[in-house]
């Protein structure tokens, strides 16, 4: 079976993709209801890899771990205009003998929108990860 590679990409600012990847891998415990939004932000930003953003790493594919179904989870800080980088990753994979169909690019900012509060962000990212996992089970 071919290994699926899930690439959560974002501009590199803020914790949205690192949070999604951490939730995907089970590195973050679900937040109990009623927890203050500020508390969530601090806890998340400090406790997950690249939670403070990864603008300086723009373009670097960052492997975070392997999920329950054997899928590999990556982060990709792509900057504001990321189309070229996504094409490049897909085409380089093809060039190196990989099947680009096994690469799933998840635009975390597009799929979560711009939530006003961090508690809302957490909920939206949780929904995103659940959707991705569901799609993964169905073969995307």
């Amino acid at each position: 079976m071919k290994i699926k590679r899930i690439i959560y990409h974002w501009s590199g600012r803020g914790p949205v993709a690192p949070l999604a990847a951490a939730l995907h891998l089970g590195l973050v415990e679900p937040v109990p209801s009623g927890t203050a939004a500020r508390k969530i932000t601090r806890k998340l930003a400090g406790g997950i890899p690249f939670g403070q953003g990864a603008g300086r790493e723009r373009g670097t594919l960052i492997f975070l771990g392997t999920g329950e179904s054997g899928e590999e989870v990556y982060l990709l800080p792509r900057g504001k205009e990321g189309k070229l980088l996504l094409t490049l990753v897909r085409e380089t994979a093809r060039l190196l003998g990989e099947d680009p169909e096994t690469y799933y690019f998840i635009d975390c900012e597009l799929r979560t929108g711009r939530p006003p509060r961090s508690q809302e962000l957490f909920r939206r990212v949780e929904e995103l990860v659940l959707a991705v996992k569901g799609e993964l089970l169905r073969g995307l």
Partner: protein
Amino acid sequence: MKVIYHCYGRAHSSVVAAHLHLGSLPMAGPVNIRQLLGLAEFDRADPSQWGIPHFMGRDEQGNEVYILGLNSQTAAGLRAITSLAWYLGKNDEVFLCNTLPAVGLLTRLGGFTSKKLGLTTIGRPLAALGIILSLRRLRHLVAWTKRNLPVSKTEEAK
């Protein structure tokens, strides 16, 4: 080994470097504008082809030669290629060579006139003239690349 010559739009310097590498342009002696304009890829690529390595041919050592346009995202693009190759355990299969520092202002001006302003009748010969003026540096770069390419396993077996 996959040799990738990359520049801004993969329309001028990387095209000429790849042809020099493959021997379809000479590594010594004069090259004229007509020869450059006759190259199938010269001043042809458009932004939709950026980020996609374009296969140019195989050299005498069996290395695959590609050209690639990275727009203004050279640093991020190189990080993407090298990190992916590293994760796949194939980082020793790719050789990246930036051709942009080898060309001067005239080629950039010609490229801008042709590709951004759409004035190909003026821009294309201007870019070609710029390439001719930069040919010595491009040849040096290609010669250096060829010298520093690791010997492929098939060649080693011979």
